[in-house]
């Protein structure tokens, strides 16, 4: 069987005609397999949804009880038959509940890795390499310029800045699902135990992470009891990046804007965003990790989904891995 007969791109996303299901569809479909809870991958309104328990829980938190017709939870490593196609979820190391989806039929193995990273992250299960014929990889940071340093050294920069500028509120922009909780946990693991204040958009997901046994320490809502900017003097505040350009940010004392993202590797990106303290912390692979993973998995073919496809395809060709870009639309390559 040709791989395209088992799985191919459509306008709604990757589609398996034999199993009659889509993977991470960008519009409502009959049956969806979801890799992880970020809103561009996990959308509401599908008929049936198959995902890990945690991804389903996260979708419920974000979209409400009726986020889909019916749901089915699957554990890591557990095989499920979908109309004659065997699917199996493996940890992707991206965010809590994130999975790679291995799709098998007649000995052909296609692995949709979703979004993934290789670095250690105490807030989710680590990526497991899965042997396959076709490896479908993201390329969010698919350029040789992207090298993500040790996240603890980045948190070190934050702690240094808190000492240098003890009067300023340190505002850390971090996406609400995954990045925010990972950053809070990293700060704790670096020995900072003061209260950390969070924007309202983060509270339910932080609660969920804690319910799942992930320690985040003393976190409090960054709401204002009195109109007193001094209340947040020298405090660490975590919120979605968009909130910092909003009126919401005015309650803080001389805010110093930090942003935890892989994009912060490029100075001009940080500068354009008005970021004073870039923290290069990513939930995606950097360039060396992408290359290492492809070499480790050793597929006979590589399909590249969203991100900087052309550079990764170029590298695969130079290395002798047949590769092609899928040109999927609807995934925000900005999210990290």
């Amino acid at each position, binding site marked *: 069987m040709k791989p395209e007969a088992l799985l191919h791109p459509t306008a709604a996303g990757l589609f398996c005609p034999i199993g009659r299901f889509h993977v991470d569809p960008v519009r409502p479909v009959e049956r969806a397999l979801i890799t992880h809870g970020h809103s561009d991958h996990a959308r509401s309104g599908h008929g049936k949804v198959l995902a890990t328990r945690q991804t389903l829980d996260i979708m419920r938190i974000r979209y409400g009880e009726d986020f889909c017709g019916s749901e089915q939870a699957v554990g890591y490593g557990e095989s499920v038959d979908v109309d004659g196609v065997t699917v199996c979820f493996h940890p992707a190391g991206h965010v809590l509940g994130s999975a790679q989806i291995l799709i098998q039929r007649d000995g052909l193995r296609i692995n949709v890795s979703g979004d993934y990273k290789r670095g250690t992250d105490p807030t989710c299960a680590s990526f497991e390499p899965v042997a396959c014929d076709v490896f479908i990889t993201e390329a969010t940071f698919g350029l*040789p*310029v992207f090298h993500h340093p040790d996240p603890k050294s980045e948190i070190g920069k934050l702690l240094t800045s808190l000492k240098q500028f003890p009067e300023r509120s340190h505002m850390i922009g971090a996406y609400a699902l995954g990045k925010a909780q990972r950053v809070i946990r990293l700060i704790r693991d670096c020995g900072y135990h003061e209260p950390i204040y969070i924007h309202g958009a983060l509270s339910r997901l932080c609660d969920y992470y804690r319910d799942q046994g992930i320690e985040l320490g003393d976190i409090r809502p960054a709401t204002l009891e009195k109109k007193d900017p001094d209340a947040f003097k020298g405090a660490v505040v975590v919120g979605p990046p968009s909130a910092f*350009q909003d009126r919401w940010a005015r309650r803080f004392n001389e805010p110093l804007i930090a942003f935890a993202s892989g994009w912060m*590797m490029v*100075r*001009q990106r940080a500068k354009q965003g008005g*970021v004073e303290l870039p923290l290069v912390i990513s939930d995606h692979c950097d*360039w060396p990790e992408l290359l290492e993973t492809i070499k480790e998995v050793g597929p006979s073919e590589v399909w590249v989904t969203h991100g*900087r496809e052309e550079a990764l395809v*170029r590298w695969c060709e130079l290395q002798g891995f047949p590769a092609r870009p899928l040109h999927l639309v609807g995934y925000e390559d900005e999210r990290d």
Partner: protein
Amino acid sequence: MKAFATLLDRLVLTPSRNGKLKLLADYFRDTPDPDRGYGLAALAGTLDLRNIKPALLRELVLEKLDPVLFQYSYDYVGDLAETMALVWDDGEKDDTTDEEQPRLSEVVAMMNSLGRTEVRAAVRDLLDHLDPSSRFAFLKLATGSLRIGVSARLAKQALSDMSGKDVTEIETLWHGLGPPYEPLFAWLEGRAEKPVLATPAIFHSVMLANPVEEGDLEKLDPEDYAAEWKWDGIRVQMSSYGGTKKLYSRSGDDITGAFPDIVDAINFEGVVDGELLVGGTMRSNSPTRTFSDLQQRLNRKTVTSRMLDDYPAFVRAYDLLFQSDEDIRTRSFFERRELLGEVISKAPHDRFDLSDLVAFSDWQELDRLRVNPPDPVIEGVMIKRKDSPYQAGRLKGPWFKWKRDPYNIDAVMLYAQRGHGRRSSYYSDFTFGVWSETPDGEQLVPVGKAYFGFTDAELEVLDKFVRDNTVERFGPVRAVRAEPDFGFVLEVAFEGINRSTRHKSGVAMRFPRIARLRVDKLPRDADRLSTLTAMVEAREA
């Protein structure tokens, strides 16, 4: 190298002056000699480092990386030094520890000792031994373009903050010292005596004046002060000793080559402060010409004899810092002026004259003179304490500048952009326009941009207007409603106005700021472009 690289990374993204000062002072305090001295030199623009050509860097990176992948990377990043710094490891993980990296002083010494044929291998090896952030710092230094928004003045202020020593004292010494500034740091840290300068034939930081503000003069006795005309030229310093004659701009740039007419005429030894102008001296009874005429002579490395004939330059002397090799800066303004008068009287009369004192008995009288000066090239008066010593920097008290009233227009807000730092949640940078006749009828054309002059309370009002009346967005910029009967009128004040080929409107303002919010006016009442062009013409006349 690591400490300097970390400093640069922070400085690039820190918009506030106080934030920069804190980062700099911490760096100077925590970094050992001689590294901090080279760091200081790099920031102040006094570091001498062998230059590397971008072409060599490209060759080096292409030895390692596929050209197509390099091009994708360069297109994405947009800056060669940064692209190089980031792609150098390619598929490898960087595992350089901070301790393994060479020190800044080692890098400077190594680069400056290389023979021509050794450069390629040495740079390649160095890049291998630096982490991405240090590579960026090194490449910026070696390609000669730091551009991080730190002036030499700010670096000196940080030295002052770090040591508690007065910044004017640091300024006085500055041009007599060089990297790695070890005697300077030893003195700043109280480990040694103040360094002694070897020769006066160097640039000495100039003394600057503060603008007269509301209520400043009432507190002062006119008896204690002298006044001079403030001429609209450029401030210069002539330094002559032992046959070496130099002309410096007020920031210390050597402009000797562009003004042979002045330098050749110097027949004295010492250091003279004055205004560079074109036209004739008062002693030769010919008029002083305008700033636009002077501009013909500025920003040129060499000068043609035609230029010398058409735009003859001269210096109107204000002050004497050294008489021959004797430092007289601690003497009073009046004493120095007397000595200056002797020097100038013996100097060629067509190239040098002495700035006149303006007689006045009280501030009201001086105010009248300031508003109606006897010469169009005068832009106000200078007020100097008679007993003031010559102190580098801008001290409040001894010297004031009192300009003719700034220009004013009513303009309409067209675009707004979010600010930085404390202002990052406010729309605080405003592009404003005035009415002009265009092929499409009467239109508002942008004429300038202002981002200060208003109070915090006024900023709230401006920001609210922008958020409630946005018609279009371009990234961080918003276009706001601006129609004859709806919009926001701003009274804009500025210091001067010139013709400009770079601006579409054909005029460029100096230091525009928002003087008042004219909520009482409608956009249809705002000024017209012809008002601005008339201001330019009046200036030129």
